[in-house]
């Protein structure tokens, strides 16, 4: 057996990252990358994607507001049982 637990503890135990997304026209977001809570920041034009295992949404949100940026589409995708399942059983396609 790969794991046995409540769905939430299964997810938490694997240390899977949350993803925070928003769009911003601000050219330089280097100050966000300096936050301890931010593990990685990727940018495709105006779309920003931040990965982290910590309480990243709250920290990023407060930092954005402090810089006068209030994106309407700020959101977080938390890891799911499906992510945990893939982490535990591999992503290779089988029968």
């Amino acid at each position, binding site marked *: *057996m*790969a*794991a*046995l*637990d*409540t*769905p939430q503890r*299964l997810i938490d135990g694997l240390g899977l990252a949350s993803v925070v997304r928003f769009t911003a026209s601000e050219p330089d977001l280097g100050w966000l990358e300096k936050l301890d809570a931010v593990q990685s920041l990727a940018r495709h034009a105006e779309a920003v994607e931040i990965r982290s295992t910590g309480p990243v949404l709250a920290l990023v949100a407060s930092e954005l507001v402090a810089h006068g940026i209030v994106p309407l589409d700020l959101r977080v995708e938390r890891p*799911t*049982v*499906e992510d*945990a*399942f893939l982490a*535990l*059983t*591999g*992503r*290779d396609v*089988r*029968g």
Partner: protein
Amino acid sequence: MPSGQDVAAGTLQQDRLEPGRMGVITVDHLRKTYRRVVAVDDLSFEVEAGEIFGILGPNGAGKTTTVECIQGLRRPDGGTIRVLGLDPATQAEQLRQRIGSQLQDSSLPGRLRVAESIELFAAFARHPVGCDELLARWRLGDQRAQAFDTLSGGQRQRLFIALAFVNSPEVVFLDELTQGLDPQARRATWELIREIRRGGTTVVLVTHFMDEAEHLCDRVAVLDRGRWPRSTPRSG
């Protein structure tokens, strides 16, 4: 002074399940092979009274085999299983009166009507649930006189679930519970399963729907081929 009857009752008491102190289902070092293929290898877990327990795993991880062994439908090659204090391998008949199951690929004779199928299954049950109650609960009241052949995929699925509950089971096994159900019926089914659990029934759910496991299960077991896949990390 204890009479013979008291002693017998005491013995009986030991065999009975004590909720909260002992698992409703105990699987200990289960092993099952088909010829040279090892379907389940050294699997151990316990399901507690009144929980919704999910069994997840990729195809071929042994989910269905495990549940079939627990129900006494297949004989393990190794290990021990106890369900409600019974050994499914040798006490399957007694067990069948106390568990319900909805199996994969179930099928009924095409011309059998919905109400007839429920009455047929109820005839084998010691404590049958009323046909009307089951039909109402699983929203099959309008289909009661309809032949199995003429039911939609979702109606068939609801009938298979209803049949799993016909004998007022203490433990119910649901294999791919919401396969083929539309989103409304899925949500309604989840709510019914929660309601059934509140009534004290233990639910074992085999599923490959991860959202279903997340919404519905108190605990999940993730099976994979091999015993401890995390100790042999894969790339990708």
